């Protein structure tokens, strides 16, 4: 979700967490907030009524928003909002496209009623199938969310379909998924994860394997078709489909493919006239398809590649640990021989080492290729397929994900983080190019020279690290990797980290000397630390992640004690 806004009026100096302030919102205004990166924000509605992306908030009840969250509180009738905590930015906007958005909802609502009133065996009983399209950062997922929440508020149970594998607003990036929405979407928790239907592409852009993407979209659409056939209520409520921001070339083709595959009846085009007119021309022969152009909200901020990458990493982390670290994943150990790992088709990121010696990457984009355990799997996120046989893998949805945290080639054991203990729900694993480690590194190292400096500074000035550590830190230094391609940068960073973490004890002394992390060390530093230790001991990784992402809950000291 890209809602937020630019820094217009930061309120209060950083750290003034005790400042409680009130904001009065006039009718049809919205308060756009980005929570500060290192402490949560509490907010409540004092008077009037207000909603966050279509979900009304209860009067007087404090809501706690985790760090970094971007959201907007909108009011139709006027409201007074009270905030407690620091924000990165917060400002009031009086120009929003909300009226047109809610009117779209009203039309959809009318059509749902019409569908519901029609005989259940007729075509007319199909509620609106809405697809939201537009360029990157035009507020597609936010609009989808509003439409779903408004519909749910009025008692419908629409189905949310997320085709944006770059963001993965239902589960994690690299996936397409669908889930019924029963209640307005929680402003803090987001899309409920009770029962998503998930297909794994494995890459954050479909361009890596366009054919696979199309196959998965088709599979998902078929299942939804079955659901709509069997469930009249769901059928009448219809669906809202969120799409990728890739609207040029192949991306445009994929949009048309999705519109066609899902039999979309309403195409909402956000923020781009050109796309709207192109789609209108293409679809004008389809009598029952409306192509509607909508304004993008001024609250939508553009995110650069690093921010997106970081957001992706957070999504993966959230999958395992929950948004507020309220989930507890399990670290398991398995023998090499217990895991059956496959990769679908070729692709630029497929490691050659995964192939039999001398083999070239497969030409068939949907061909299944078995992968033997190798170093490249480290830190990769794998999907657990429901397939009973290998040839069902492509057409099967997935049960969830595991994250490889360690590979021991001597004992032939793999340590991985899984949602829960016990056997995996399927024995076939699908490999993509989703990794946790490299994305984290990349965002840390590249996003800000300032932070990098701080890391090095803290580490090196306060203690005398082992020479290996120094070298590793140097390797991480962007000076050395800049000028290389992204992939090579990853590699270089990875090497540096590996060298670094070959000295776990050193890492721990570093950590403890820096001074019980969450307080002293900055957020970004912690993030890096968690990665540094990651390779060494999975159990600790888990805990470190928790600390690194939420400075306000801190198991760190315990870990250090344990270690010594």
């Amino acid at each position, binding site marked *: 979700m890209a809602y937020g806004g630019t820094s217009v009026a930061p309120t209060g100096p950083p750290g003034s967490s005790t400042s409680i302030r009130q904001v009065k919102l006039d009718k049809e205004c919205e308060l756009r907030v980005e929570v500060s990166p290192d402490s949560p924000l509490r907010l409540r509605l004092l008077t*009037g009524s207000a909603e966050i992306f279509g*979900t009304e908030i*209860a*009067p007087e*009840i*404090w*809501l706690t928003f985790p760090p970094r969250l971007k959201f907007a509180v909108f009011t139709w*009738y*006027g409201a007074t909002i009270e905030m407690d*905590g620091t924000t990165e930015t917060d400002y009031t906007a009086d120009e929003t496209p909300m*009226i*047109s958005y809610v*009117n*779209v909802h009203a039309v959809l609502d*009318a*059509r749902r*009623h*019409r569908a519901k*009133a029609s005989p259940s065996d007729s075509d007319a009983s199909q509620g609106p199938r809405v697809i939201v399209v537009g360029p990157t950062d035009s507020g597609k997922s936010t609009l989808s969310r509003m439409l779903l929440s*408004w519909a749910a*508020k009025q*008692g419908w*149970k629409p189905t949310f379909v997320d085709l944006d594998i770059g963001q993965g607003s239902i589960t994690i990036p690299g996936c397409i998924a669908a889930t*019924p929405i*029963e209640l307005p979407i929680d402003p803090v928790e987001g899309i409920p994860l009770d*029962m998503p*239907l998930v297909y794994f592409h494995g890459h954050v852009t479909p361009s890596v394997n366009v054919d696979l993407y199309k196959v998965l979209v088709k599979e998902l659409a078929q*299942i939804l078709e079955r659901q709509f056939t*069997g*469930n009249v209520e*769901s059928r*009448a409520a219809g669906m809202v489909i969120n799409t990728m921001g890739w609207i040029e070339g192949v991306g445009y083709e994929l949009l048309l493919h999705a519109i066609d595959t899902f039999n979309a009846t309403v195409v909402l085009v956000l923020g781009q006239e050109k796309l709207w007119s192109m789609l209108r021309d293409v679809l004008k022969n389809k009598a029952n398809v409306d192509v*509607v*152009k*909508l304004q993008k909200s001024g609250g939508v901020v553009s995110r650069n590649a690093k921010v997106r990458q970081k957001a992706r990493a957070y999504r993966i982390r959230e999958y395992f640990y*929950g948004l*507020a670290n309220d*989930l*507890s994943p*399990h670290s*398991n*150990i398995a023998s090499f021989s217990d895991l059956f790992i496959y990769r679908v088709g070729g692709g630029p990121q497929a490691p050659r080492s995964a192939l039999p010696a001398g083999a070239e990457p497969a030409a068939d984009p949907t061909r299944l290729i078995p992968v033997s355990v190798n170093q490249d799997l480290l830190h990769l996120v794998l999907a657990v397929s429901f397939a009973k046989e290998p040839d069902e893998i492509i057409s099967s*949805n997935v*049960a*969830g994900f595991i994250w490889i945290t360690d590979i021991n080639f001597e004992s032939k054991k793999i340590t991985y983080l899984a*949602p*829960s*203990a*016990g056997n995996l*729900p399927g024995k076939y694993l699908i490999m993509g190019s989703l990794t946790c480690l490299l994305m984290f590194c990349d965002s840390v190292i590249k996003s800000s020279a300032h932070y990098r400096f701080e890391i090095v500074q803290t580490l090196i000035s306060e203690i005398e690290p082992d020479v290996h550590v120094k070298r590793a830190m140097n390797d991480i230094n962007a000076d050395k990797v800049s000028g290389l391609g992204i992939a090579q940068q990853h590699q270089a960073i990875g090497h540096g980290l590996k060298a670094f973490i070959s000295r776990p004890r050193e890492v721990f002394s570093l950590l403890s000397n820096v001074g*019980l992390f969450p307080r002293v060390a900055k957020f970004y530093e912690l993030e890096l630390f968690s990665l540094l230790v990651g390779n060494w001991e999975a*159990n600790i990784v888990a*805990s470190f992640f*928790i600390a690194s992402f939420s400075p*306000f*809950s*801190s*198991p760190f000291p*315990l870990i250090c004690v*344990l270690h010594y």
Partner: protein
Amino acid sequence: MNIYSSLPPPGNVAPRNSLSTNHTASLVTDYRGNLSKSGRGSINKIVEALPNVAGPSDLPSQIPPSFRESLILPHLQPQSHLNAKGGDGKLGGPSSIASTFSSTYDPPVPDIRTAHDAALTKAWRPAKFQTPHMPSLSALPPQMQIRGQFGMKTAPNIVVDQGLNKTIYSEQHLGSARNMSQVNFPLIPSQRPGLIPINLQGTAQPSLAHSMVQGAGQLPSSVPAPSNSMVPPKSYGYLAQAQGHPIGTTSLSNIVPGVQSSLPVLNAPNMSFHVPGAALRPLPGAHLPGTSQSLPSGQTIGQVAPNPPALSGLISSLVAQGLISLTKQDSVGVEFDQDSLKVRHESTITALYADLPRQCKTCGLRFKSQEEHSKHMDWHVNKNRTLRTRKTKPSPKWFVSVSMWLSGAEALGTEAVPGFLPAENTVEKTEDEEMAVPADEDQNACALCGEPFDDFYSDEMEEWMYKGAVYMYAPAGSIVGMDRSQLGPIVHAKCRSDSDGIPPEEKDERESTEEGSQRKRLRTRCSIGGWGEKSGGYDPVSSLAPVSQETSSPLYSKLESSQNRAVMENLGESLRLLEEEDIDAFHRPKTL
């Protein structure tokens, strides 16, 4: 007094005959089932439902004399309100009505809602709404009480133009009427300015529908009615306005906005002809069939919208008389119109707010009926229970297979909570959630330990409760029927558990969990200021070692060894100091 409790249970009342007061309960089904069926082709239905609506010209002769009387009776009410409320600046002369409307519209809406909440979910508070003209509503039959409420709430919003004998309603007025899921008919002055207490909601019993139409029939219906329900909103609005002109444009903007919205929008529940409660007050014993019974609103809407000869004819007649006005087009329709999309349509917003009058005070979700609302509160209670009894953090769930998903999605359609949701441990249920007694003003601290009780408002019990508290001498089972004096003072359940009051099986349970108590202690020691346990947010043990037992991690076994425990206890102390500030910073909203 809970108004609803005095009514027959909704289940016993067939939707068609349901009292309007009951309608909230049955509305969902009506709304979905009937209302929404009012598609494009529902003209037949309308004709069926209103077989007697032959045409305006036939109608006058059918008006029963008593009905005419009833029309006259309420006439004075609005004026009284006018007088009573004259000072608040909400009344406008003929020329300023439109602006009055818009200026008073916005702020009151939330208030109206609140009023509804207060009135409907809790006790009736006459003082809040009573006007001099409404002395004793509680003496009225239940349905009349509801009306009385309406009347009182709406009264301040009624703007009476004495010169023109018109009654003007602001939209929020209608919204509040709709809150009650009543579709009301507009005040239809007949020979004299007055209010026709017709309630079409729900059921408009035939006779009621008649009376309404009859009332209309008296009016010259020379104005052509919009005959197509699909007429684009805008054009209809203009048309209506034009029709209204002969009588006076000043009145056009404000009367019963719901009326016009009901025409173009086939399926929106915004068709609101309104009966002010005041109008009904003089007739408590009269029991006009139409006023006490109602049609499912969905049907009503379906009927009205596509039925050009009867109802829209009526409406245009009314417009022609200047009795209602259709200025602001209030719906978006079923087609996307770029211009229409840019305009605020009040019905769209009220459909999301005022039309769903009951709001969950915990999460802000809104409901039409009490039934839905209480179901939702049960859900909250269960959820809280689950959260509280949870000893460790839950694990992320695996996603479901396709077949499960299909059946689960199916299940969602009927009754929520798919079967694959985790089975939650309910062992501690009795300890926390159910160990609560109504708050006692005479005793606010435990009789044993002297610590004050934590109180909370139980939506289940609808009163304030002391958390984790029991009566000292209460037996294990139900205390229903026991005299309060027999129960003894209120004590913390945990304080009493050392004494005799504890039932034997609970003791066993306690012992059986003894093995876990060491770890529990550990957790308590280490958890930061006790915060972890409460919110379920942070649990050092599980987060420290997110390891399944079988993975035999060296770290995990170390954690379990006793010397480490000692270390950790020390650490817990210092941590507590360290983290004290953060606790406040991460204060999760208290649910329930």
